[in-house]
């Protein structure tokens, strides 16, 4: 038995997915600042790096199983407008590039963090190393593959 996952073969360039939405609260901001060790710059402002984490969690709530991520390789990101407590965000993800490697493959996703007015607040690219279905070993003594992941 293996954990359900979306493998490299299941992904196609151009695939678009839209996550459920999440209302940003003071609790999100306060928990994040406590964890990061950041000071509050201005009351009501959402720390700029927090939405990156939140959208990975939103990605777990899509109807398809989570992407079989072996490693989160890189992120390029632009914060285009500030987000505030009370804003409701969702994420639009599009597979931009898919490149097969010997073990697994690289999947580059374009991501847009969109607020309740439909405005893009943040956007960028996540690069993942994703497991191939064929390479999936049995769980016992697998040694390599990580299933059921979305991001490291």
């Amino acid at each position: 038995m293996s954990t359900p996952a979306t493998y490299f073969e299941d992904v196609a360039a151009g695939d678009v997915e839209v996550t459920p939405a999440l209302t940003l609260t003071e609790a999100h901001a306060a928990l994040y600042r406590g964890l990061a060790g950041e000071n509050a710059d201005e009351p009501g402002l959402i720390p700029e790096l927090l939405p990156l984490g939140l959208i990975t969690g939103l990605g777990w709530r899509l109807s398809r199983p989570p992407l079989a991520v072996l490693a989160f390789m890189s992120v390029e990101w632009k914060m285009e407008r500030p987000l505030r407590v009370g804003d409701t965000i969702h994420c639009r993800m599009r597979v931009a590039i898919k490149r097969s490697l010997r073990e697994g493959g690289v999947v580059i996703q374009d991501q847009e963090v969109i607020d309740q007015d439909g405005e893009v607040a943040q956007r960028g690219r996540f690069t993942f190393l994703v497991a191939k279905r064929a390479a999936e070993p049995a769980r016992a003594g697998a040694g390599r593959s990580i299933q059921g992941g979305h991001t490291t």
Partner: protein
Amino acid sequence: MAGVRRCFEEIEVGEEYESPGRTVTETDIVLFAGLSGDYNVLHTDAEFMKTSIFGERIAHGLLGLAVQSGLFSRATQAYATVAFVGLRWKFKAPIKIGDTVRLRARVSAKQDDGKPDRGLVTVQRSLVNQRGEVVQEGETDLLVEKRGQP
């Protein structure tokens, strides 16, 4: 120094900073999973991870990114930052429970677009573990206030 924030004009290309260390704990990972909703087995299933190449649970890459952000504020006097506007970042190696990371940062560029009130400061950052290995690195773009007009 408390409360005094450094303006665009005061920050010089080539300035370097090093933060104190911070030990990343199981608690950090559990809290980040709860906050983000990212419950990947990489971060949450100790038994499964014994069979992985990592041998144990590892921190979320984005937790490392959050930790470096806090370490930056402890590495140098605060900038008069208006906004954090851009990031180019690589996750190079895992952060494991009990690893102690510190941030090395260097101002790599300043860009003045002629706006009267703000300029762009780019900081090159490396998050380094207790063995001196770079676990994450990249660049951040910060919009920083210019000195107030008298």
